[in-house]
């Protein structure tokens, strides 16, 4: 993975740049000591690290605007950072960049239950948004698995999803408006609590633009009344194909579970050894969760049971109480940790049409043998968003490269069958150089033109998303 050579001119001007930032910001908001910058040298894609020039932690939109204005005047690249949980390197800095972290901007600005929205500063964590409205019986729907730590700012940048988006959609479907600061310091309001766009839907393109169009400092989010209850079932099959067919049967029957999760045999075995959730030893396992009142849950589960039994599962297990429900989710929720116990792993995120599921799993199995690396599959089956976990040994020379090559082959396969490179993690630096697998040059040109408008000098989170060769001229300014 390459990053462009840092601008030595910027690095040479470090003391002047830091002094200008210090003049405008409270003393504790500007960090430039080498040991303190270590925190910001990577995000959750820990294989790649580089300390930034400095890090700034503003508390208000006005401070964000002032910081960006200085960086714009000084020609310094800026890398926005929420909580640094990106798996794609979305918040990874370069040596000539300033990290703009929104972690201190975590206030709730307004809650309005009558109009069903909350307005928050963007550094607020995903789970604490739901926590803020829970007492009134509401929640914020997108639930990425990092929700305890990840910030709304990063959710918006990556258009984050989660296990329950089959019913509730992803971030873009729950985002009503934002306050955005452009690289030149201009503050822009896009959308608003009424939700309906006026004119061009600029909010729609800002969401998922990976921090390249502006820094989101505040957001209006849709909140939803909590369902009366929820309950999962576990269904085990001895064939990936049949499990995939069962998913399609359920969807076609018009039942809309809030989640349909899928685990394959390597993943089931790893989680059993780790979490002992009592899963059956089978080839494919589905966890299906439905919501509603007791009666509604029973009605849906009866239908699902009927559909699943027609496919001759090795096991159909309904949660009789809260404890059993937790046990059904236990293995799924421990899957990443369990794989991590075995070895280092790389988590992929491609999406495939649900109809290609069996074929893709078979090919991944074949490739696993070719590359000599084990892989476990756990994913959101209802929407085809896969999370293959490739195991490798970071201390073994060449293993990371082999793993990356294997990962790239899997993602190419996803695109080949009609899917995409990333369903919810984002492109970042991780998939940047694979973009040409999915997009023709003119497709990427159209996207880059949007950045040209918001950030004509390409100073904001540059060298991400688009292949370096393709963006080189624009980044050179």
């Amino acid at each position, binding site marked *: 993975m390459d990053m462009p050579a840092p601008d030595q001119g910027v690095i040479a001007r470090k003391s002047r740049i830091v002094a200008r930032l210090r003049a405008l910001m409270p003393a504790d908001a500007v960090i430039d000591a080498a040991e303190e910058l270590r925190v910001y040298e990577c995000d959750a894609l820990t294989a790649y690290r580089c300390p930034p020039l400095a890090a700034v932690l503003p508390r208000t939109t006005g401070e964000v605007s002032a910081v960006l204005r200085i960086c714009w005047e000084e020609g310094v690249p800026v890398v926005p950072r929420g909580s640094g949980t990106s798996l794609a390197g979305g918040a990874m800095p370069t040596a000539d960049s300033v990290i703009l972290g929104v972690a201190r901007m975590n206030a709730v600005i307004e809650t309005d239950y009558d109009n*069903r929205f909350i307005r928050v500063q963007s550094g607020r964590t995903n789970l604490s948004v739901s926590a803020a409205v829970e007492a009134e*019986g509401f929640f914020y729907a997108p639930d990425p698995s990092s929700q305890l730590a990840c910030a709304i700012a990063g959710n918006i940048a990556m258009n984050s999803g989660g296990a329950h988006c089959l019913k509730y959609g992803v971030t873009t479907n729950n985002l009503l408006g934002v306050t955005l600061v452009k690289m030149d310091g201009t503050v822009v309001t896009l959308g608003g*609590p009424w939700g309906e766009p006026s004119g061009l839907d600029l909010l*729609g393109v800002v969401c998922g633009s990976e921090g390249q169009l502006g820094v989101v400092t505040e957001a209006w989010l849709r909140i939803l*009344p909590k369902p009366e209850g929820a309950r999962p079932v576990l269904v085990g099959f001895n064939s990936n194909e049949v499990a995939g067919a069962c998913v399609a049967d359920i969807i*076609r029957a*018009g039942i809309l579970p809030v989640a349909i999760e899928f685990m394959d045999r390597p993943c089931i075995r790893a989680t059993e050894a780790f979490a002992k959730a009592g899963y059956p030893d089978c080839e494919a396992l589905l966890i299906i969760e439905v919501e509603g009142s007791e009666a509604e849950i029973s009605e849906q589960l009866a239908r699902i049971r009927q559909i699943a039994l027609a496919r001759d599962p090795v096991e159909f297990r309904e949660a009789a109480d809260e404890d059993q429900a937790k046990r059904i989710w236990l293995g799924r929720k421990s899957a990443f940790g369990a794989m991590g116990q075995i070895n280092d792993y790389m988590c992929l995120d491609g*999406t495939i*049409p649900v109809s290609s599921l069996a074929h893709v799993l078979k090919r991944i199995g074949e490739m696993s043998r070719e590359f000599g690396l084990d892989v476990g599959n756990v994913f959101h089956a209802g929407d085809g968003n896969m999370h293959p976990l490739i195991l490798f040994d970071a201390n073994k020379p060449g293993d990371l490269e082999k793993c990356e090559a294997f990962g790239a082959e899997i993602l190419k396969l996803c695109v080949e069958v009609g899917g995409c490179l990333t369903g919810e993690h984002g492109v970042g630096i991780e998939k940047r150089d694979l973009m040409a697998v999915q997009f023709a040059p003119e497709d990427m040109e159209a996207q880059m033109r949007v950045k040209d408008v918001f950030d004509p000098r390409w100073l904001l989170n540059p060298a991400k*998303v688009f292949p370096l060769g393709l963006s080189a001229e624009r980044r050179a300014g």
Partner: protein
Amino acid sequence: MRPVTEAELAEAVAGASGPLLVRGGGTRTLGHAVGEVLETGGLSGVELYEPGALTLVVRAGTPVAEVDAVLAGERQRLAFEVPDLRGLLGREGVSTIGGVLAANASGPRRVQVGAARDAALGVRFVDGSGAIVKNGGRVMKNVTGYDLVKLLAGSLGTLGVLSEVSFKVQALPEAEATLVVEGLDDAAGLATLRKALGSPFDVSGAARHSGRSLIRIEGMAGSVGYRVRALTTQIGGEVSVVEGEPSAALWRQVRDVAPFHGRPGDVWRIATLPTAAAEIAARLKGEAVWDWGGGLIWLLVDPGRGANVAAVVAGRGHATLVRGHGGPVFPAEAPEVAALVAGIKAKFDPRGILNAGMMG
């Protein structure tokens, strides 16, 4: 011009010597754009339909009626409930699916499942220079690159001419029922809608007109029955329940703004906060059809009497003049937003030939 392939469409745009008026069926066109008519109706037909994956890929000029029929064959539908505005706008013609997405046209179920933009998974389009561009795809979760699908949705043909669109579709529910609440004034009737939307009963429609508030529930039969009973208890007052086809007919009326068909006057479409819905309609002295729990107001006013609409709505939404004369059709943008919009248009349509003046 009426191209029948995407390549022909690209040639038509690239070779255009002047402004083009991009049109699907012309059934919901707004604004003052002029130019040579470029129709997309020749680009018609379903490319791919996977009912088990809830995905449909269709050429942009395909009639909405054809899409509806194909989906109904598998007991599915477009979730966002496409409004038919021909009666309101006094238009003839065949509404196309590309036109629907270009207008982000969304009906009552928007409160539950989102708008056309939220159901759209992918687009192919020809930009103003004649280049063919694709974005998104046919899978439900996709964050690969920028989301130009959202940008094109609602762009009214000013950034590019859609040639193909893909949607997430929805299974038809087993049952539907509507609670009809009578005997309340507008403020109380709208408060009832907000209360229903704030309940855990998954309301799929919340509208009010002609002195009645309507609340829709859809789903499995037992579930619909349960939620109707629970909501009826919660709301209290004069509630009656309409089921099945008569319920569906009530929502077609709301969706298509039927109460204003054939009546004189200007019609404004106002997006606002539900809590402001009663007051805005009262202050503007119009007759209202409220949808989206009050978040959408269709307002009928005497011809030319809408001079203060923008001022009354300012700061809590925006208003579009969908039928009538005089004044700008589309709401003004803040200067810093207008600058971004102008910049995007200049990039996607450097010659300024696509529906020029449409959104201005």
